[in-house]
């Protein structure tokens, strides 16, 4: 038999052989009968001839029937075999594809999770473990609401409704909560999953932690807004200085031409007002210098001592000044940080007609802290919240620009630090300035347990910018 024919007729099994033997045997019998009848036909009676045919014919029919049956049987078997093989091949191909997909899902940086239409978690990849803090074992079977903060549960049910209608959700920005309770900004894409018959069976979520990104965006926006505000303030200040000079010169010129004491007194008052205006523009300009920040390793105790001395003019007679410092290094522009501390001290003295203003230094791991405390009037919570806002001031008109703290904070944040306040009305306030001890790029990355908590991305973390966020106080 040719290979083609063999293919068509399948392998020769015992059943097949048996059938062929039977067919062969029957054929032989048939042949014998035909020959016998043929030889004996002239000598036979009609009855005997008929009997012979009656016996022989069924045998012939049986042979034909068997032969056809055998063929169709073998064909069927062969086709079953082929179908099985095809099924196996596609099954193994399918499994391969599954394995590959699973590998992709597992190795993805993003969190990928599957859930039922009721919101029960069915799959949970490594990215999800990293992002949310739950292991797969802990997460699977739980409702997806475990990672949703309370104030976003309404949103979740809206999302689930859309999914049940078969609508996907793309790059939706929201807030999620980790196992440790920390809230993170997440960008999520949810796709409905259908089975082979097109029925909705669940949903797949791909989520990405965008907390860092949003923080950077916010700071960029703020610094941009501040940058243009700073430039505006600078421009205004510079322009105003010219008319201020004119006022001063003209006043002096008048003063030299008159003897009248009344006139001279009033001229003196004009000059005093001019000096106030000049100090305002000076304050604006002091912080608005374009970009020149000389950040260097510096000892905070020196800066503090110099600042305390400089700020002493603002101290009221009934107020004590206390300085408890020890050498503490940090990375900062000494002159600017000194200005910041002088500003804080001035505010402290203004708030404390009688009492004490204390400056202390604290070592806080990656950061060095300067604390300026006073026993003055203190601030209620709504003032505390707004105290760093530009132009927000608690002072009377003309006594301040409301820019000091905003500018100070801007400065410190540009260093990679932060200023915060805690206060109690009637008891006093404490301002805390945090400054990084190290250059931002090196902080935390190669110090186990130091710096910011690793968000699980390990080596793939982008180089951190100057705007590192210090631990909240």
């Amino acid at each position, binding site marked *: 038999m040719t290979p083609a024919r063999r293919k068509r007729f399948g392998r020769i099994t015992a059943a097949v052989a048996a059938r062929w033997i039977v067919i062969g045997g029957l054929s032989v019998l048939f042949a014998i009968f035909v020959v016998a009848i043929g030889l004996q036909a002239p000598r036979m009676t009609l009855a005997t001839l008929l009997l012979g045919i009656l016996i022989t014919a069924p045998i012939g029919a049986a042979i034909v029937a068997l032969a056809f049956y055998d063929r169709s049987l073998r064909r069927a078997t062969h086709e079953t075999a082929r179908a099985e093989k095809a099924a196996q091949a596609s099954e193994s191909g399918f499994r391969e594809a599954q394995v590959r997909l699973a590998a992709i899902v597992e190795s993805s940086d993003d969190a990928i999770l599957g859930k039922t239409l009721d919101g029960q978690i069915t799959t949970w990849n490594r990215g999800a473990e990293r992002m949310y803090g739950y292991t797969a074992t802990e997460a699977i079977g739980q409702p997806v609401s475990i990672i949703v903060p309370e104030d976003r549960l309404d949103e979740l049910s809206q999302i689930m409704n859309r999914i049940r209608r078969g609508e996907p959700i793309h790059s939706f920005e929201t807030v999620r909560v980790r196992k440790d309770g920390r809230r993170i900004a997440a960008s999520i894409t949810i796709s409905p999953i259908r089975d082979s018959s097109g029925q909705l069976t669940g949903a797949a979520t791909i989520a990405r932690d965008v907390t860092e990104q949003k923080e950077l965006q916010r700071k960029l926006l703020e610094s941009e807004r501040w940058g243009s505000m700073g430039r505006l303030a600078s421009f205004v200040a510079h322009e105003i200085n*010219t008319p*201020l*000079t*004119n006022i001063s010169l003209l006043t002096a010129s008048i003063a030299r031409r008159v003897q009248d004491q009344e006139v001279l007194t009033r001229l003196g008052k004009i000059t005093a007002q*001019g000096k106030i205006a*000049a100090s305002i523009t000076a304050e604006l300009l002091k912080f608005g210098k*374009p970009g020149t920040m000389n950040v260097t390793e510096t000892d905070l105790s020196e800066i503090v001592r110099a600042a305390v001395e400089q700020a002493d003019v603002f101290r009221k007679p009934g107020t004590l000044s206390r300085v408890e410092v020890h050498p503490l290094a940090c990375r900062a522009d000494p002159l600017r940080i000194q200005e910041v501390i002088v500003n804080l001290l001035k505010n402290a003295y203004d708030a404390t007609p009688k009492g004490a203003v204390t400056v202390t230094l604290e070592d806080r791991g990656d950061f060095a802290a300067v604390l300026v405390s006073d026993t003055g009037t203190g601030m209620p919570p709504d003032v505390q919240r707004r105290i760093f806002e530009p132009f927000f001031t608690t002072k009377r008109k003309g006594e301040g620009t409301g820019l000091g703290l905003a500018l100070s904070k801007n400065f410190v944040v540009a260093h990679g630090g932060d200023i915060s306040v805690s206060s109690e009305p009637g008891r006093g306030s404490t301002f805390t300035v945090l400054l990084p001890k190290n250059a931002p790029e090196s902080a935390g990355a190669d110090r186990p347990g130091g710096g910011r908590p690793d968000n699980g991305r390990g080596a793939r973390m982008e180089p951190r910018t100057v705007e590192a966020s210090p631990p909240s106080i």
Partner: protein
Amino acid sequence: MVSASGRGPGGRPAILVVDDDEGIRENLAELLALDGYRIVTAASAEEALTRLESEDVDLILTDFQMLGATGVELIEEARRARPALPAIVITAHPYVYEQIDETQKRGVRLLLKPFGADEVLDLVASILRD
């Protein structure tokens, strides 16, 4: 013929006041005149140089940023004919001024806006005393 020093009859020192802002220019001129100085004014560096061709001064008091050439360029030009001519530069933009090459700033005093009458008079007096 103009003498080597700007002091004309009576020995009053002469000051060249240059500023494109009329207010400052006139006020300074008046103030300094009241203090006994002879004043020559100009509204720009170019005008100032023209004036210097026919007049001699003992001190240049000039704004830094003006239309056209800057006060520093004016001083440089003026010092070609009269090296070591004392000069005061007035500016509201110290940062920009700081960028200027040190060699051009030699012997030039800086006066920051806003300044008071006393400041400028004291400064002028101290320079011309020497």
